C-alpha cells in the first residue's frame, strides 16, 4: 500500500498538467471554432509559395 504515497501525488501532478494544457487551449482560442478543424484536417495545407 505504501506505493500509494507515490502514486497519489503523481496523479495530482498529472491532473495539474492536464488542467494547464486545457487552460492554454482555451487561452489560444481553440474552442472558438468547433467545426472548422474537423474539415481542415482533410485539406492539403502546404501553403503555396508567395507569388
Amino acid at each position, binding site marked *: 500500500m505504501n506505493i500509494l504515497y507515490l502514486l497519489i501525488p503523481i496523479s495530482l501532478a498529472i491532473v495539474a498538467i492536464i488542467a494547464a494544457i486545457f*487552460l492554454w487551449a482555451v487561452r489560444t482560442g481553440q*474552442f472558438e471554432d468547433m*467545426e472548422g478543424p474537423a474539415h*481542415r484536417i482533410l485539406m492539403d495545407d502546404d501553403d503555396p509559395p508567395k507569388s
Partner: protein
Amino acid sequence: MPATAVGQPCYHCGEAVPQGSDYPIRSGEVTRSACCRGCQAVAQTIIDSGNADYYRLRTDLPKTPEAALDELKALALYDLPEVQEGFVKNEGTLRDASLILEGIVCAACVWLNERHLRQLPGVIAADINFSTHRARVRWDDRRIKLSQILEAIRDIGYHAYPFDTGRQEELFRKERNAAIRRLAIAGLGMMQVMMYALPTYIAGDDGSMPRDIEALMRFASLLLTLPVVFYSAWPFFQGAWRDLRLHRAGMDVPVALGIGAAFAASVYGSFTGSQDVYYDSVVMFVFFLLTGRFLEMNARKRSAEAAETLVKLIPAAAVRLPDYPTARTEEAIGAVRLAPGDFVLVATGAAFPSDARVVEGHSSVDESLLTGESRPIPKHPGSEIIGGSHNLGSPLICRVERTGQDTVVSSIVRLLDRALAEKPHLAQAADRIASSFVLALLVVAAGIATYWAMVDPARAFWITVSVLVVSCPCALGLATPVSLTAALGRLTRIGLLSTRGHALEVLAQASDFVFDKTGTLTDGLFRLREVRILRGDRDNALQLAAALEQGATHPIAAALREAALDGGSDAAGALPHVQHLTYHPGLGVEGEINGQRYRLGAPEFAAPGEDFSLPAGLTLIALADAQGVLAWFGLGDGLRPQCAELVAQLKELGVRLHLYSGDRPENVAALGRQLGIADARGGMHPQDKLEAVRSLQATGAVVAMTGDGVNDAPVLAQAQVSIAVDQGAEAAQAAADMILLSSELVRLADGVRIARKTQRVIRQNLAWSVLYNALAIPAAGMGLVTPWMAGIGMSASSLLVVLNALRLANHPTKAHPTEAPPQTSPKIS
C-alpha cells in the same frame, strides 16, 4: 473544345452552360467551360493561384458570382483611415481586421480563402472561423492595402465586409472563455476526486483500508476540491453575496450555502479524521450546475445574435455626392459622418449605408436581413430603402433619410432589447415564487437541522446539506427566462419581431384575431387585377386603354398605364396617338385611335346593356369600340399571398377570426366570403373598430389585432396584443407589441404555435419543478438522500428544464414554398 453542348454544367457554379456561349477555363492541359464571364474569371483566378484542388475538395456548389465591377470603387473606401478607425487595429505598420465572409458554403471555401489570402504578398495571417463565417486578417500596410485584400476575396467569388467587433462581442467571448475554464476545472476535479472516493466507498467501514491511506486520499481530494470551490464555484458565492446584500433570496443562496457548508465540513473532517467527507459531492454538484449555466448562456447568445447581425451589415463607408445634382463628384467618407439630406451613390453589390430614398436609377434590393426573405425587391425613384440591404441591380443615387440610431435596423435592435429586458407576468411570477421558495427552503432546512441535531446529531449535518442541495428552484428561476429568450430568438428568425415582453404570453392565449383589410390582408395598392378579353389581344387592349388615359391623373388611369408598361410595351412614348379625346366626368373617356372610335370607362358608359361579372370588390372598367366591348378590366386592391393559408391555419388553431375595415361594406363582405371569415364588417371608422374590439373583449375574448401600425394605432392599443404588418421602413415606428417583418403572412400562425408551445414548455417545467421538490425535499429531510445523490438529482433536474426550454429555439415552422434553408441545430460549444 471551345463551344459547349447545352446542359453541360458550368465548371465553377454547376449551372447549365447556355448554348453558344464561350467562356473557357484553362486548367493545365485541360479546358473546361463556364456559364458566364463571372464564373470564368473566378475559376481562372482560383486555378492560376494554384488552388485548383478546391474543385476536388468542395462538397457544395457556390453561387454564380456576379460580375460587379462597380464594387471595386466602393472597396477603395476601406483604405481611408477614418473608415478603418472602427474595425482595424493598428500596430505600427501592421494592421488587424475582422471580416464577415459571405458565400461560404463548405469547408473547401474556408481552405480556399485562407490559402488565397495567405499567398498575397503583405498578408501575414488569415484565419477563418467556419462556424461564424468570420475571418481575421493581419497585413503589412506598406505592402498591401485592405482594399486589395477585399478585392482578392472578390476575385475568387466571395464577398467580404469589415465589421466592428464591438465591445459586446468581445465581452461575450471573454465570458464564454471564463465559463469554459470554470467548467474544465470542475470537470477535471470531479473525475479525479471520484477516483479517490471510489476505494473508500468500496472498502466501506470494514476497516480494510488503513487509516493513513484514507487520510492521504482525503488530503488529495481536498487539494483538488480547492480550485473547484474557489475558482469554478466562485460566481455562485458572488451571486449569493449580492442577493444577501440586497436582502433578497436568490437561487444562488441555497447553492452557495450547500457548497460552502459541505466543503467546510469536509475540511474539518479531514483534519480531525472524525467525520465523513463530501468532496465528491461538492465537485460533482459544481460541475453539473456550471453545465446548466453554460447551456443557458449559449441560448441567450443565440437569441441576441439574430438582432446583432443586422447592425453589422451596415457598411462602414459610403460614396457621397456633395454637389449633386449639379455635379457628380464622388467623395468617399465614413458612413458615420453621413447626415440626413446627403446624396450617396450605392454601387451594384454594395450595401446601403443608411436608410435612404432613391432619387435616381432603378434597381432591385435584397432586404433579406430584415424580412428573412431573399426575393429581390424592385426600387424606383421615391422608394424607401433600409440601411444594410444590398443593391442587386444597377447603381442608385439616394438621399439619406435617417442615420445612426434613427435607422430602422437600430430601432429594431432597440425594440428587441426592450422585449428581452421586459419581464412578462409569467417570468415575474416565477421570480417571486422562486424568491419565496428559497426563503421557505432556508426555514425548512433550519427546522430539519434542529430536529436531527436532537434526534441523531451525527447525521444532522449531512442531512441539512442534502436538503439544501437537492432543492431545485431552477425550473422557476432559470428555465422560464430561457424559454422566453429561446422563443423570442426563434420568432425573430422567422421575421416576427416582439417588441414587448408580454406579447408572447398573450399571443398564446389569443382567442380572437381581428384583421384590418387594406394593407393587412390586401396589399393596399390600386392595381389592375383582372382582364377579360373579348376581342383582340391583351397587349393591344392595354395599349389602347393606356393611350386613352394618357393625360389623366386618377388612380384608375395610373393603374392602367402601369399595367400597360408591365405588359411589355417599353415606354409610354410608344403608345398610339389619340385624336378627338373627350372626357366624360364620372363616366369615362372617348377618343379616336387610327381612325377607330374607342370608349373606356364605367360599363353603363362604354358598354350599355352588357354585363360581365368579375370577382366582387373590384372596380369594373370596359373598353369598347363601335362594334362592342373589346375588354373588361377589373381594378382594385389585391389579396396578399398566403392569406387563405393563414386563415386556414388560424382556424385550425381554434382562433376566431374577424375582419374590420374602413373599406366599402360590399367589398369587405366579398373578401370575407372568399376567405371564409364570417364576421366581416366594412365601412368602419377607427372609433367603430375600437368599439367592436371592446365589445369582443367584454365577452371575455383575448383579442389579437392585426393591422398597419399607423392608421390602426388606437385599435392596436385597445387589443391585448397587437401585431403590425407594416412592410419596411415604417415597421419600427409602429406602436405594436409585435411586428411582422416577413412578407409571409403565414408566419403569424407560426407565431401563435410557437407562443403556445412556449407556454406549454414553461408549464411543463413548473410542473416538473413542483413534483421534483415535493418528492426530493421530504426524502432528503428523512435522511434517505446522501449529498452526492442530492447533487446528481438537482443537477439532472436543472439540466432537464434547460434542455426542455431549448427545444423552442428550433421549433419547426410549417414548410412554405419560400422557406429559407433550415437553421442549423444549436451548437453546445
